[in-house]
């Protein structure tokens, strides 16, 4: 009995130690937290169906699959989600009408609908991080996107052109990787709700790791369109538990629907 108790106590102590974020933190040789890993996907690869096997794949819409109102229900649910979004960018009051108009006509205006890049910060957190001394590589499975973030102390590239993902430099603030991005083209949106911006936008992303959890946060400044900085809703990711996990190539984007859209219905 005593032996069983001592084993139990030892097991609990080990569990408590493993649960400690400080001990769980993996670090690189230069002492920074190691953010490397695949922060997306599933542990096991999807098993393909056998030839000749029937299947049913239902995209979730909260109604009977035979409901004739199912397309309407999709739009209604999406609009509800958007209306309930508590964290909208702080646009200047005089721009509210423009945002609404772009939102109402998003099917024709949202650059992401038409296969343009999402751009920073709409890209959100990376799917994989490869961290080396002086350089952090961010990989995004969606649209096969990459970003290279120098962390060797250099300043922004004064010669850089404006691009969808901008010019980024990184630095460590304690255990947080801070990525500062400027020179972002005004062609991208911040979200599908007509959230446009100017080319004076400046984005600061923060990545921090606690054990197998990664938190991504972003602050967006745009003095042309916002009344104050916008703190995007942080996103929390879980490390893919399969050490051999690989990102998959995203198929190309080929928009073919635009010419066939005949109503203003949207979600």
């Amino acid at each position, binding site marked *: 009995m005593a032996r069983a108790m001592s084993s139990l106590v030892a097991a609990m102590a080990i569990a408590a130690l493993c649960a400690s974020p400080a001990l769980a933190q993996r670090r690189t040789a230069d002492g920074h937290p190691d953010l490397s890993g695949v922060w997306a996907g599933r542990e096991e690869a999807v098993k393909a169906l056998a030839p000749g096997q*029937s299947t049913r794949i239902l995209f979730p819409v909260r109604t009977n*699959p035979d409901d004739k109102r199912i397309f309407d229900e999709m739009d209604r649910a999406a609009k509800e989600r958007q209306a309930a979004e508590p964290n909208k960018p702080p646009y200047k009051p005089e721009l509210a009408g423009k945002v609404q108009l772009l939102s109402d006509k998003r099917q024709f205006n949202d650059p992401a609908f038409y296969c343009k890049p999402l751009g920073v910060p709409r890209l*959100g957190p990376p799917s994989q991080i490869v961290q080396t001394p002086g350089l952090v590589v961010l990989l995004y499975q969606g649209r096969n996107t990459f970003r290279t973030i120098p962390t060797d102390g250099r300043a922004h590239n004064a010669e850089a052109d404006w691009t969808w993902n901008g010019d980024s430099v990184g630095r460590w603030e304690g255990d947080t990787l801070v990525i500062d991005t400027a020179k972002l083209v005004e062609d991208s949106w911040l979200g599908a709700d007509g959230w446009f911006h100017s080319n004076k936008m400046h984005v600061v992303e923060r990545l921090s790791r606690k054990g197998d959890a990664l938190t991504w946060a972003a602050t967006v400044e745009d003095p042309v369109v916002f009344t104050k900085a916008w703190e995007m809703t942080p996103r929390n990711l879980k490390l893919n538990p399969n050490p051999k996990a690989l990102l998959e190539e995203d198929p190309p984007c080929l928009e073919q629907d635009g010419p066939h859209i005949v109503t203003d219905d949207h979600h």
Partner: protein
Amino acid sequence: MKYILWTGAMAVALSGAAAPALAHHSLQSEYDINQSITLKGTVTKVDWVNPHVYVYLDVKDDKGAVTKWAVTTLPPGNLRRGGLTRDLLGYGETVSILAFRARDGANLAFLRTITFADGHKLEIWLGDASKENP
């Protein structure tokens, strides 16, 4: 006949990613659910692309005249998570497709079910199976 149910909600839970949009636009704005159509023909091409996979079909009428149709469905990621690959979508085979026509009258429709010559079916659609009528 074995059916596998996969939902986007499960995919999101497992991937830890933000919910992917099904349609990058409203299906209502492009397709008419009251105009269902059954197309019988040969699959001439499968376009495994974002934001929607396309299946192209040559449909012959009684006199042998061929009409070309395009049938679109969910994004490739949704199909992959459901165990489908592009080679399972019937390239070169004769199939029967249940779909809903585009509102603009083009030979374009949104897929619900592909039935193959051997009787097996791929239903790629929307909804909540728990709300189906018994």
